[in-house]
């Protein structure tokens, strides 16, 4: 009797003990906490407008993300859409009706509850703002109305298929604000909005700083985050430091905990154990030369193909980009869902480029620039940022005999040039999370398209993918679009812009969302 009992208890005791140990360990794992209560995050420019629904400025969106929540969330690595404020959702087959069921017990910071009526007020107010909220109006293209079925169920209806909408509901651009904010004027909303997020706007002194404070009682974080409940710090201050040298100096001296936009040239300096670097490529269409094929020289296919093969994207990345970035290999950046590499069609081959130009009749002149029938091979590119990228391209194209003239203008003049159509090439990127960015840029039916091209097949593919609900079918259409664009040299990609931020080593919990914007819900400072 005394023999069997110990054996039996040993057989039972071991697993029980193991389970108990695991249980104890789980209980012993300390919940996430922050040693310091205030985080100082130096930003590089004045956000100008604090309403995340209206602004497209990355700085403003980075701040706005902490103050508003969204109906859905998107996994930054897989691109999968997961529930957030909407605990379930469904779409109809032709992407014209989206039904959401909201979760319970969500309140805004003015203690009003989140109901289907409030969501309807949000979308109606956005539709009324129109082009004053440019990015939101693109997500809501074709918006008809929102039908409220009961307190927690609503259906959003569109008159035309809207492929971007569901992904758009995961961004802060369609982040939800309280009813009081939807009723306010656009200018008042730019000063402050009331959201349901883990932080609340405390103060905004233009050209000086923005301060947000923790929302007490916050308990509806996305499942993609590291913890639940309230934020781990009570205040985040965003001083506006436009001087790069002062921002990096402040990080080094410890005055700032995190800084936005570390200049690429300083990357090596902060790549040490005392600092942490955060890098993520922007999604959407990479920084590129976007053509206006109605112009005389640009219409020549051989010229565009030669330009595509004559740009060394690896060199551009080394000279002007982040060390951790990849050179662009398609019409979409490598971090965008639906990206398919077109590297073979875009490989740097200056000899092939020169042969194309020779065959097309462009003869090398004595000044190093080609000419044909007395017309020099000289094209211009209009841009309002990334001058260093364009200067590198200019150097590279000179080697194959193309003269690229740079036309740097202000942002306002850039859009003026688009409106008037007075350009050979535009130099810019289009940062969007959804591959529908290709349609926004290339479809001649799109309201603010930048590329002027005439290709019925491409037009058809772009329109079709915007109407396709089935993810696989849509992915294959997006792949087709990328092939068409690169094969016809309708785009000359130059650089995948990378968001590069830096922090002191004891800061944790800073993550990127699927749009390469920052989420600070989990931010904490260790000892």
């Amino acid at each position, binding site marked *: 009797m005394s023999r069997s009992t110990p054996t039996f208890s040993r057989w039972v005791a071991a697993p029980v003990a193991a389970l108990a140990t695991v249980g104890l360990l789980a209980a012993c794992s300390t919940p996430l906490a922050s040693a310091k209560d205030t985080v100082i995050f130096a930003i590089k420019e004045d956000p100008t407008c604090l309403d995340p629904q209206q602004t*497209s400025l990355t700085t403003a969106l980075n701040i706005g993300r902490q103050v508003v929540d969204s109906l859905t969330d998107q996994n930054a690595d897989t691109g999968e859409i997961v529930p957030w404020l909407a605990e379930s959702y469904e779409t109809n087959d032709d992407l014209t009706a989206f039904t959401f069921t909201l979760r319970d017990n969500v309140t805004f910071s003015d203690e009003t509850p989140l109901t289907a009526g409030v969501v309807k007020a949000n979308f109606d107010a956005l539709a009324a703002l129109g082009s004053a909220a440019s990015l939101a109006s693109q997500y809501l293209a074709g918006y008809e109305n929102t039908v409220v079925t009961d307190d927690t169920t609503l259906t959003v209806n569109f008159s035309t298929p809207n492929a971007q909408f569901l992904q758009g509901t995961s961004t802060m651009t369609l982040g939800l604000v309280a009813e009081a904010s939807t009723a306010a004027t656009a200018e008042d909303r730019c000063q402050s909005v009331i959201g349901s997020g883990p932080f609340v706007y405390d103060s905004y002194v233009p050209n000086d700083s923005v301060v947000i404070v923790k929302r007490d009682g916050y308990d509806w974080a996305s499942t993609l985050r590291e913890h639940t409940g309230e934020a781990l710090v009570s205040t985040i201050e965003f001083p506006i430091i436009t001087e790069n040298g002062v921002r990096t100096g402040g990080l080094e001296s410890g005055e700032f905990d995190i800084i936005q936009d570390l200049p690429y040239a300083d990357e090596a300096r902060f790549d040490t154990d005392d600092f942490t670097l955060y890098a993520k490529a922007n999604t959407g269409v990479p920084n590129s030369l976007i053509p206006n094929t109605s112009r005389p020289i640009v219409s020549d296919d051989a010229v565009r193909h030669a330009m595509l093969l004559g740009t060394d994207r690896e060199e551009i990345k080394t000279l002007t980009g982040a060390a951790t970035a990849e050179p662009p290999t398609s019409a979409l950046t490598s971090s965008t869902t639906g990206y398919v590499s077109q590297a073979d069609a875009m490989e740097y081959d200056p000899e092939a480029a020169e042969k194309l130009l020779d065959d097309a009749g462009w003869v090398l002149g004595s000044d190093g620039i080609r000419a044909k029938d007395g017309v020099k091979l000289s094209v211009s590119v209009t841009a309002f940022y990334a001058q260093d990228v364009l200067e590198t391209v200019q150097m590279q194209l000179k080697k194959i005999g193309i003269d690229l003239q740079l036309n740097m203008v202000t942002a306002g003049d850039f*859009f003026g040039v688009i409106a008037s159509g007075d350009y050979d090439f535009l130099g810019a990127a289009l940062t969007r999370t959804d591959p529908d960015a290709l349609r926004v840029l290339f479809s001649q039916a799109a309201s603010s398209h930048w590329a002027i091209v005439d290709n019925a097949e491409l037009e058809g593919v772009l329109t079709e993918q915007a109407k396709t609900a089935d993810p696989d079918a849509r992915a294959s259409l997006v792949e087709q679009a990328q092939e068409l664009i690169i094969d016809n040299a309708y785009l000359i990609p130059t650089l995948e812009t990378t968001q590069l931020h830096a922090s002191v080593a004891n800061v944790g919990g800073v993550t990127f969302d699927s749009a390469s914007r920052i989420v600070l819900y989990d931010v904490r400072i260790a000892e």
Partner: protein
Amino acid sequence: MAPSPRDRLGTVVRYLGPKLVQFAFVIWATYTVTFLLIHFLPGDPVLAALSLKGGDATTTDPAELAALRAQYGLDGSLWQQYIGHFLSALRGDLGVSIATGQPVADMVARALPNTAAVAVLALVLGVVTAVVITFLAFVSPWRWLRQTLLQIPPLGVATPAFLSGLVLVSVFSFGLGWFPSSGSRNPLGVVLPAITLALPVGAIFFQVFSAAVLEAMAGPYVFTAVAKGLSTRTIFLRHVLRNSLLPSVTILGLLIGYLAGGTAVVETVFSRDGIGRITVDAVLARDTNVIQGVVIVVALVYSVVNLLVDLSYGVIDPRTRPALGGRRTGTGRAGSPQADSPQAGATSVDAARDKAVIES
């Protein structure tokens, strides 16, 4: 025979009148020139304002842009915009910023105290340093020391504010941690920008002030005072200082006007809100209402300061006061004081000396 009140009034009006007309003319002229410059600049104000908020999502659809233009009132004729805006500015309504949607008066009122705080501290630091160095040069018994001291302040003008500001931040903020590197939340944040601004401001003031002092030093009344046995400090404070005030006050007025316009470079380096920065942002955004509002306010400050400087001549130097009720003496000179003062000072000194000789 005492001048009658009517004569007194007449003199005052004859004295003040031209100055008030000049005041109004400067403001009107500044507004008009700015209006013409802005409206003949290429570029569309509506697109510039939209692109601030919209980034790469800015709409370029012509129909939507036309609707927005009508909404912001940018579709009247040039003449209508000119008169309408001027009249509302006279009423105190400076319009609404296209880029931010804020009333322009609010934006200026928010930025002005920041600029003023730095400007006042910079002026105080600059003037005090200039006076101290001048005094030391004045009392120094060796010529080489005097020459050295006189050469130091011009360095303040030679060094660009951008460089001196960044060096100060590196050393005193990041290095020693005595002052914050940015922002206006911490009251100590005024110090480093003020020092950066005090360098050129103090240097310019010093040039004029020290020249005036050195000239006054050579005056015969100083010779008399030395002969009477007064200490160097008393001579400096009681005789030399007051005689060198005329040109110094003039340059002070000009410097206040310059500082009222804000210095965008210092405000950018130290990440402070201020008139300079909102002006630069407004120009880049083609925000016509803000540009005109800022220009009117700065012109107002500048004109008021210059009016006060003109009026202060009478207080500082009795020889420039018009004899009330009769002969006009010295009123003409106050109109262009900076160019004339040294010579005017010299002739007045001679006249005063003659008077002193006669009366003693």
